[in-house]
């Protein structure tokens, strides 16, 4: 199983039936393909609707795109609204869970995912609202950068998307919970050792006594 699939499958287990979920572009969106049996969620698309259909569904028209600008479709029972209502839903705590990627995340739950000064400045889009408004914020990302540098730090160095907003970090190596006392290692991926996690993580963390192997198949 490749890193992205591990992460997406583990994220999918966080879904509960009836959840309203907003998924970022990339790995987070992939998670919708691995919904546990009997679990149905409602996907919110921050550009203005609820009931985003899975990406492999039929594509209706150019006037219906997801937050990445891709043509998508909407499920029966969906609802369309303007951008103010879309973010009233997000900011108002009506989204149960949001899953986003990160450039950096740290042991205080800070998240940086919208700019690298002088290099990459895409803008925050809806991310700052999502992390401040969603009930549960999950960072889903490969544990390190492509060149192997740690992304889970003691303190973010890049401009923040949100301060103290992250609840869980799900990577191809492990699952961390962000607690008031710092990071708690809940699970490690099959075949991964705690040492391996430690080597690839700058942040301090505590191992949960009941730590288990990531339950993915």
């Amino acid at each position: 199983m490749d890193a992205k699939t591990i992460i997406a499958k583990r994220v999918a287990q966080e879904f509960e039936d009836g959840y309203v979920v907003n998924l970022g572009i990339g790995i987070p969106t992939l998670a919708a393909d691995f919904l546990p049996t009997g679990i149905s969620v409602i996907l919110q698309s921050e550009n203005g609707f609820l009931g985003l259909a899975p990406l492999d569904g039929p594509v209706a028209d150019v006037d219906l795109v997801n937050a990445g600008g891709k043509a998508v479709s909407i499920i029966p029972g969906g609802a369309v609204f303007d951008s103010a209502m879309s973010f009233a839903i997000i900011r108002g705590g009506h989204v149960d869970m949001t899953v986003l990627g990160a450039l950096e995340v740290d042991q205080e739950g800070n998240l940086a995912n919208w700019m690298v000064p002088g290099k990459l400045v895409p803008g925050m889009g809806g991310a700052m609202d999502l992390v401040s408004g969603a009930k549960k914020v999950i960072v889903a990302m490969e544990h390190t950068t492509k060149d192997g540098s740690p992304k889970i730090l003691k303190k973010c160095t890049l401009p923040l998307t949100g301060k103290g907003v992250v609840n869980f970090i799900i990577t191809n190596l492990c699952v961390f919970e962000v607690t008031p006392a710092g990071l708690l290692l809940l699970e490690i991926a099959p075949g991964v050792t705690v040492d391996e996690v430690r080597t690839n993580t700058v942040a301090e963390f505590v191992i949960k006594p009941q730590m288990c192997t990531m339950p993915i198949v």
Partner: protein
Amino acid sequence: MSKITTIEQALEFVQENMTVMIGGFLGAGTPERLIDALVNKGTKNLTCIANDTAMPDKGIGKLVVSRQLKKAVVSHIGTNPETGRQMNTGELEVELIPQGTLAEQIRAGGAGLGGILTPTGLGTIVAEGKEVITVDGREFLLEKSLKADVALIKAHTADTAGNLIFYRSARNFNPLMAMAAKVVIVEAENIVEKGQIDPDQVMTPGIFVDWIIKG
């Protein structure tokens, strides 16, 4: 007096140095005919308030490529490399605003509110230089309301009184911007007679709309 006009007459209201709101999300729901005509006309030094600068060959992106913008107030520029390039060289000023804050600031402008109190952006550089207001022990950022001289709106259907219906995710910022500009110009795919839209189905009341062109 009819609100239906020509694209040329409508664009008379867009002058140099004006602030222009333009609907759309990565091009979806952007009035492309108005944009193309504005590119042809070449009106410069515009401040554009929009969700994003789309792509170089699409929507608001075309106004970036044609260097008609002096400032972009947007939530996202990642899909248009030309915006980033002009920002880095100092040709274009870019103010990045969280999308939900931007939507609510525009709504506040139209609704006569002095600004909004949002938790979004607290503890980030978005909060720099802005007032923090504490309400019942919780902190909120005061973000001012936004208005414009002109709004360029894309609708699916307009009646001759200016009542608008939007289609799917092409709605996005359009209804909000229609409330927040002095002159509102709508590019409508379909134009119907007054009375043909049921009052309950109207998404933007006609009183907000000044001019309609056929899209």
